[in-house]
């Protein structure tokens, strides 16, 4: 049997009804939690509003049902969920489509599957991401794809793509994976990175690649202030996410400890498009 014959995709639709007074923590809005459940069972799943425990069904009209597994479950959220945090947290497979904007921590620590947001997301989206895909049609807030506070193990793998702008501190302590921002970014990009790729197609500000020991940052637009710990090496012709161009290649951050491979010191790289 082919995979397509085995997989039976089911869709759960969540339509926001009551706006919570406080913000709700909805780490259970995941294909993993919804799999194998009926609409009624899904409506009975817990969410937290402040220190009170409530039910998903209080805030959403639930229709459809979960698939047999997370991979066979798609969740569609109809409209803005500006007071809902942690959608898709730690999901391992399946799909979430948010037709609107969401609050913080969308796809935080996600391990697989795909999240697509047609509006904006607030801070900490894709925090500690291990794998999977996160696509934002609008803007993303601060700390996109960054490590959790205190942790030195940030984004490991997977892809984050933002079609608008992103805030500050994206990709902090990044270890792997790719973040692509079509628009501009605020300060602190790839701070402490030990791997991974960040592509900024708009403009950067300052503190790009600060304390980065390994990894690649591409900036297509301007950089207000280059970190003093970076040294220009050479011009290189590259194709980056479909764009062919000449880039100025810098190595750094010279203020940091760097590993070696085959006798060669490994640096972080910043590539700025001409």
């Amino acid at each position, binding site marked *: 049997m082919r995979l397509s014959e085995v997989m039976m995709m089911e869709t759960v639709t969540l339509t926001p009804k009551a706006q919570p007074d406080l913000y709700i923590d909805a780490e259970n809005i995941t294909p993993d939690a919804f799999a194998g459940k009926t609409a009624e069972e899904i409506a009975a799943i817990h969410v937290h509003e402040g220190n009170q425990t409530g039910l998903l069904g209080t805030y959403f009209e639930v229709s459809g049902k979960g698939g047999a597994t997370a991979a066979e479950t798609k969740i569609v959220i109809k409209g803005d969920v500006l007071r809902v945090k942690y959608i898709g947290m730690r999901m391992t497979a399946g799909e979430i489509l948010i037709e609107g904007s969401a609050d913080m921590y969308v796809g935080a620590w996600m391990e697989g599957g795909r999240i697509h947001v047609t509006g904006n997301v607030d801070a900490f989206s894709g925090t500690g991401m291990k794998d999977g895909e996160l696509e934002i049609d609008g803007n993303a807030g601060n700390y996109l794809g960054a490590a959790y506070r205190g942790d030195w193990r940030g984004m490991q793998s997977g892809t984050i793509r933002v079609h608008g702008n992103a805030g500050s501190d994206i990709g902090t302590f990044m270890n792997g994976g790719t973040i692509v921002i079509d628009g501009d970014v605020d300060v602190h990009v790839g701070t402490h990175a030990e791997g991974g790729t960040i592509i900024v197609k708009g403009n950067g500000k300052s503190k790009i690649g600060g304390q980065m020991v390994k990894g690649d940052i591409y900036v297509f637009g301007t950089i207000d202030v280059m970190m003093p710990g970076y040294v220009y090496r050479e011009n290189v012709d590259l194709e980056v996410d479909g764009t062919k161009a000449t880039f100025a290649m810098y190595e750094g951050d010279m203020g940091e*400890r760097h590993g070696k491979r085959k006798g060669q010191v490994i640096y972080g790289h910043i590539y700025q498009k001409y």
Partner: protein
Amino acid sequence: MAEYLIKNGFVFDPILGINGDKTDVAIKDGKIVESTALSNPKVIDAAGKTVMAAGVDIHAHVAGPKVNVGRNFRPEDKLFTYEAGNGVKRMAGGFSVPTVFRTGYLYAKMGYGTVMEAAMPPLYARHTHEEMRDTPILDQGAYPVFGNNWFVLEYLKNHELENVEAYISWLLRTTRGYAIKIVNPGGTEAWGWGLNCNSIHDPVPYFDITPAQIMKGLMEANEALRLPHSVHIHTNNLGNPGNYETTLETFKLFEGAKANNDFGRKQVMHHTHVQFHSYGGDSWGNVESKADAIMDYVNSHDNMTIDLGCVTLDETTTMTADGPFEHHLTELNHLKWANTDVELETAAGVVPYIYGKNIKVCGIQWAIGLELALMAKDPMRVFITTDHPNAGPFFRYPRVMKWLMSKKAREAEMDSLKWAEKVRDATFLSGIDRELTLYEIAAMSRAGTAQALGLSSMYGSLKPGLQADVAVYDYNPETAEDPELIEKAFGNAAYLFKGGEVVVKDGDVVSNGNKKTLWVDVKVNDNPQVRRDVTEKFLRYYTVTEANYEVNEKVFMKNPYRIEVDATQ
């Protein structure tokens, strides 16, 4: 108060010499009594279960400023660990540096009733007591650190032992402390100069005395003061390949010394987390276990006790008053580092550490911790600890017990190490067939620790008259074969009685108990010089006044429990 009769359990009590016999345990008015003293007891059926006195932990870092630095600078340690409040329990979380609530709950779930905070910086005694006050259930005490204290160094340099004694008396009373802790004697003071004392004969900068003189002097003062506990030592050169020689040299300082006290304590010196002090070789490439040499010495000298400091192969947070060591560690693992100097007294550092199964040295450390216990001839002198959280979190004790009680379990762990064969080559563990009995485990986790702390009249046994701290574990020693049952049972006590009250039932905390904080009030002859020196040091050097230094027990303590000693003779 309710009366209880715990019936038909398999009782293990090294003090009473009960080795698994089915014996009833009677509780009345918070104490253990003869069963004939009961009139209308509630009967607890312990048939098929193991019954012991509640556990007594002699060394863990569970309260105070460096523990809190660990909590503050490791938010990631708390991630996904929080549990909402439920019943009598408050919200609690954290892994290697849990909140005070989680600390109390998890110890209670393991059937522990008493936990000693192993290093209290005197200047921050108030903070330490505030945290202990807020730690539910557990009886606690804290050891102020003395080994780098300017008063001690000056008096010892001048051979003024009486002044050392008077100062210890003053400090224990002022900080509501329990015992004399010594951490990297002289080395932590040297760290203030960017230096260290790597051997017990390295002179301390400015003070010009040696770690050996500090340790020996404090031991003599301890015995002159007739304190309940002995000096509690973490010697120099911790965590370095080849350091077992420093450890043996330290042990030898106490040769021939005799304990002097009215508390039933037999040792003159307790050395803590000996695993970190038992390394051979001269680099991380050839480091090897010297547990054999260490235990040969310990086994043949009954005036000392040790605890293990078992590595549990977890991600954890190291924290110690051994400031230079933490700097050394952050240079090794490149993880974040906190460091502080505590004026006139000590220092501290904190660094996260991952004991990985794919790192050879971590496997060797894991093996050494277990070897020390498995080579012990007298389990009343060798105690189970993980130097929480330095070698692993305290809630792994049930796992350590499983490894100690089952060769099969530790071989399975050994086989799961990436460098199993290299670890085997550098250690003795796989060649040891011994499996500890529950009787020996009871000695290493309650009877022996209570005795070494000078608290055998309160804890560690089920002898009538003792505080009714009793643990019941759902473990049948006659039928249990799967070693996993050990870990499960000892991590989820069927019952914990604390002061005669049920605080844990079926692995769940049902009461916050009525914790006590123990401290030692040792009376010495009036010593005007020390009084004058204290006043002068506060005026000249301390950034706080004497009045803002002392621990007011009404404000900072819950149920202070004063242990009086008269050393005026």
